[in-house]
């Protein structure tokens, strides 16, 4: 993927401290097929039960603080990849979730202040990784995000961590 700039419509999930049991519940952990994971995403997050019915393809999802805190379950990342979500922007992410996402090639963008940044359902966001800037193209407002570390870009560019493992003897 291009890692210089992305843009897309938005999926807003502006809730702090969403944990992995709210993203993909523990009772479903024998499910591994991405298409089977999809309908269960946010199935245990009050107010977001209809997430499964909406189209999230090529959207940028905006979340709050500590997104993905909790367990190590990979399904909580795989589900968003199955929806073809471009990237997730949040105030902060659970550290294990961050690593799981990078390893699977899902881009997470840390942007302190995103919770107060005005975005509506109909807006389009553009993220420039060279300047580390998020722009709402409808309002013209911008917000700085943290730069994506180079090793993270390397893993994502390679198509995920498992691809790097193929080069190892």
């Amino acid at each position, binding site marked *: 993927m291009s890692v210089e700039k992305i843009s897309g419509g938005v999926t807003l999930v502006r809730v702090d401290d969403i*944990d*992995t*049991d709210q993203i993909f519940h523990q009772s479903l952990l024998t499910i591994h097929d991405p298409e089977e994971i999809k309908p269960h995403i946010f199935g245990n997050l009050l107010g977001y039960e209809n997430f499964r019915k909406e189209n999230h393809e090529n959207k940028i999802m905006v979340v709050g603080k500590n997104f993905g*805190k909790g367990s190590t379950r990979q399904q909580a990342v795989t589900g968003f990849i199955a929806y073809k979500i471009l990237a997730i922007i949040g105030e902060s992410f659970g550290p294990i979730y961050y690593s*799981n996402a990078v390893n699977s090639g899902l881009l997470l963008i840390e942007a302190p202040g995103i919770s107060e940044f005005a975005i509506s359902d109909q807006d389009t966001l553009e993220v420039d990784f060279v300047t580390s800037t998020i722009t709402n193209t409808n309002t013209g407002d911008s917000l700085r995000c943290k730069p994506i570390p180079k090793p993270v870009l390397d893993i994502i560019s390679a198509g995920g961590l498992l691809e*790097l493992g193929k080069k190892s003897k």
Partner: protein
Amino acid sequence: MTGFTLVEKIVKSHSDVSDEEIYPGNILWIDLDLVTARDYAGPQVIDLFQKNYPGSETFDNDKIIFTPDCYPYGNDPKHAIDQEKIRVFAKEHKIRVTDLGSGIGSHLLFRRGYAKPGDIAFGADSHYNILGALGILGQGAGDVMLAFSIKTGKSWIKIPETIKVVIKGDYKWPTTSKDLALYVLKLLHEYGITGKAVEFYGPIISKLSIEDRVTLCSLITEASGVIGFVPPNDITAEYYKQFNLETKTIVADENANYADELEIDIQDLGLYVACPPHPHNVKPIEEVLGTEIDSIVIGSCTNGTATDIKQAAEVLKNNKTHENLRLGIVPATREDFVELNLDGTMATILEAGGNFFGAGCSTCARGQYGLTGGKTTVTMTTGNRNTQGKIGPGDVYLASPIVAAATAIKGKIAIPEKKGD
């Protein structure tokens, strides 16, 4: 130059980079001492390994363990087949499996001496950072990382900033390390330790037992922290003597680069309960006294050791659990089970109306206990998560084994008055 924190020292000793590259925020490749996976994640790790690296050997079969602890009883076809996949792969690759009834993987790593201070262990468990209680850099990881790691023996880590937390003061019965852990969780969550490591210091910390250290460190995940360390000391060294393992002294440098230093005064600390719907929603017990509870589970990697369960038994002794309430006990490991049996604790709890379930992760993964009820069932556990809907649709409170025992007798959240006699 500036010295190194504990996490920086451990990372440095497991990578081949220069001192200049050891700083918070930098991402480094590290060599792992131990890679594990449990019954959730394990089968998927194996699938990813076989699909991406067909015909490959693992990096070192002696440094891999499968630790089925979530659902090892395999009492439905899907789980049973997943378990089988682990056993077949492990046999083919000569990998150790801590199978049925062995207990929680993270606990076995120290209870059986599989990992020691200064080591790095990655596993499919977000509470692997409880190993910080022994100076081990334990980290939870997902399927993809673990499949990569069992092939290469490597992982990557973003060096976290470290917050030095000095605990001042002391507490006494019925307050325990769980109340300390809940109180500290509340403060650290408010402060914000997402992606950060913590080192605990203070006179009370250096004399905590291994079990108490584990309880304290087990709630760091709930504040989205990377790990909490209790620096290894003579108590840690003494613990490892049972395995004839000499442990190296590993301490942070005097001039280590801490992002911040906090002092927390816990003199005469009271009892605390985490209230729905988040672990960090911690309140003094007085605010929720009298809340009716239908089901209690004592167990989990936070409070499932023999030491924890004995504390509950001291309160339950010569008492009966309330007629409207069910009490389940899930020891963390087989070793804890044996200990409870040898000194009569099991009989004390059974006579009081409690029930024992096979060793393992307890309600956190449903494998030993299942749901505690429907929408109207209110649960108390000694675990670490009360997220809405996790254990069941009803409310969940988190408390210490002593508070759980007192509550089990009264049928509502209660303060223990005295140890039973």
